């Protein structure tokens, strides 16, 4: 399971450029499902037929493949690259981070004017993306243009690492951990038809999920996410959105959806009955694919389960392996429970 997570998190897949991740997932799940295909917008949809001969219900499981990253917007005369973020990234975390650009993974580093060259007011204010550039070691525009094209995507250069007590550090845990959960869940057989949808462009506006739900027309849907975890110093306890190691987080409400109450109750009951720890997500901000799925067509009963991840949208997000394992168990029980 850890190796799967390594492969998935180290792959490049900024929103709109999910091919590499999609190929990995396709390879993993093809032997496990009855049909797998890519739709018009790039979602990977896997259909696993249920065992029950007279089953009519369709269950959609959803995890997004894309991650936040950068897109190259211009090359300066001195060979430095200007860029824009793709998805929500806090600019303050960017300085001196290493990145990989394009298919050939051209290495670069995010640079900014040195502190002794900054005006006093520049030092006081948080840096803006516009002040930064990517340095790929090129001496001129011509040299840089041989390696990088406008529109190339960049990802954080970040290897997955196991550390501490059962912890994993990696980029893109939001939402490759959800993809990994779905892959593991597909290894079992179920009564009802399952559609596992690995969606594109969640980070730029839940775009893939709307298309996938429109096509699949599920009766029940579950989104599996890597969500924020703020159980850290300097935060009041009532502001913790989730707590690491306390099990999968069940969402009651966030900015994009209110989870179906019956499904939330079912998840809690399953957790209690099967001895799977779980927690209720406290924050109500943010959004995910559920926002598009639950209002698709005539409406879909939808819920969200997440693996708590600290420092999401950074090169070093952190999760606990036990949360990962328990999320897999809870999702499996959920799919069985829908029977």
């Amino acid at each position, binding site marked *: 399971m850890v190796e799967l997570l390594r492969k998935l998190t180290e792959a490049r897949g900024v929103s709109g450029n999910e091919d590499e991740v999609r190929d990995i997932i396709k390879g993993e799940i093809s032997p496990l499902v009855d049909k797998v295909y890519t739709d018009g917008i790039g979602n990977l949809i896997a259909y696993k037929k249920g065992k029950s001969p007279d089953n009519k219900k369709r269950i959609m499981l959803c995890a997004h493949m894309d991650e936040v990253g950068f897109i190259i917007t211009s090359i300066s005369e001195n060979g430095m690259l200007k860029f824009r973020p793709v998805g929500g990234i806090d600019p303050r975390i960017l300085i001196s981070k290493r990145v990989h650009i394009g298919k050939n993974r051209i290495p670069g580093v995010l640079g900014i004017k040195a502190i002794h060259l900054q005006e006093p007011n520049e030092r006081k204010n948080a840096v803006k993306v516009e002040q930064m550039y990517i340095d790929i070691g090129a001496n001129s525009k011509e040299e840089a243009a041989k390696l990088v094209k406008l529109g190339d995507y960049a990802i954080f250069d970040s290897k997955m690492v196991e550390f501490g007590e059962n912890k994993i550090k990696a980029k893109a845990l939001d939402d490759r951990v959800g993809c990994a959960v779905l892959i593991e869940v597909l290894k079992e057989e179920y009564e009802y038809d399952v559609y596992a949808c690995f969606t594109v462009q969640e980070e730029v506006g839940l775009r893939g999920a709307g298309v996938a739900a429109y096509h699949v027309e599920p009766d029940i849907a579950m989104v599996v996410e890597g969500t924020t975890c703020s159980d850290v110093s300097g935060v009041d*306890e009532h502001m913790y959105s989730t707590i690491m190691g306390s099990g999968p987080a069940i969402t009651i409400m966030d900015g*994009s959806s209110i989870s179906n109450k019956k499904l939330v109750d079912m998840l809690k009951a399953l957790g209690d009955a099967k001895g799977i720890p779980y927690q*209720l997500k406290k924050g109500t901000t943010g959004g995910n694919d559920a926002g598009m799925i639950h*209002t698709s067509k005539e*409406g879909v*009963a939808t819920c969200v389960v997440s693996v708590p991840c600290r420092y999401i949208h950074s090169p070093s997000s952190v999760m606990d392996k036990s949360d990962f394992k328990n999320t897999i168990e809870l999702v499996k029980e959920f799919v069985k429970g829908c029977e």
Partner: protein
Amino acid sequence: MKDLLKKLTETYGPSGNEEEIRRVIEEEMHEYVDEIDIDVMGNLIAYKKGNGQGKKVMLSAHMDQIGLIVTHIDDNGFLRFSNVGGISVLNTINGRVIFKNGIMGTVSYEEEIENIKDIKLNRMYIDIGASDREEATEKVSIGDVAVYYSPLAESNGRYIGGAMDNRAGCALLIKTIKELKDCKNDAYFVFTVQEEVGLRGAKTSAYAINPDVGIAVDVTSTGDTPKARTMAVKLGAGPAIKVKDGSVICHPKVKDLMIDRAEDIDIPYQIEVLEWGGTDAGAIHLTREGIPSGAVSIPCRYVHSANEMVDEKDLENGVKLLVKILENEIEL
């Protein structure tokens, strides 16, 4: 009207928790319609058959109200909360709130805050009188939602209460259902869920019904209070026919039709241009291939506070207008 409004505004039903208000509405009007359905999202859809020659009309009034969702219970039994819909700090401080199970609370904020501008919802709490976490968790769980506690009051032909947004609209639809006699058009009265968090119920119900025309019935702001934001809508000057708001530009033919019908029956009406906000019409008009949509609005002061004010005459005239629209041919 008063009894109905009292019943509707005092019934619990924040976004996502519309079960009770849905039951009350269903009880009120089920004898007067041909069919009733509750969909996956929880929308209540009442169908009244036309004479077979008219249009398929969807009338939508959202039944949800804004609320306070419990996110954390601390050691001393105080509840931290977040907003469900447009809850503002100012309208909430020192107000009373009530949970589904009848538990009451008062809302306060961390006392060390000196400047009122620094008060954010996440620095406020609900006090339900519990002395510790254990006592509090016996009564309330994380995810439970409280609403403003506000019994209906009447003053000078005007009603003051909570959740006028949009139980006043629900009252209008219920009255319309009851008073419709010779309905030319196929009417779908939809009491929608989750409007306050993003017009979500209207989106799915409009998709399912696929109407020829959509009409949202909701409250709107007024510009008639001291130093109010400029807006040419007054309390008591008649139902407002919407031209636009932040979510929709009403179909001109639907708008004109509403004006013609109001002229036909000689009721006062006003034209509404709302520079902000939105209503179910915003979701309905973009459904499928596009649905000509408009809105009849009830002028309402102090929207999203515990004490919203509407005028009896505006409600009565709103019913007359809706009945007239449905009993006549709709040509677009």
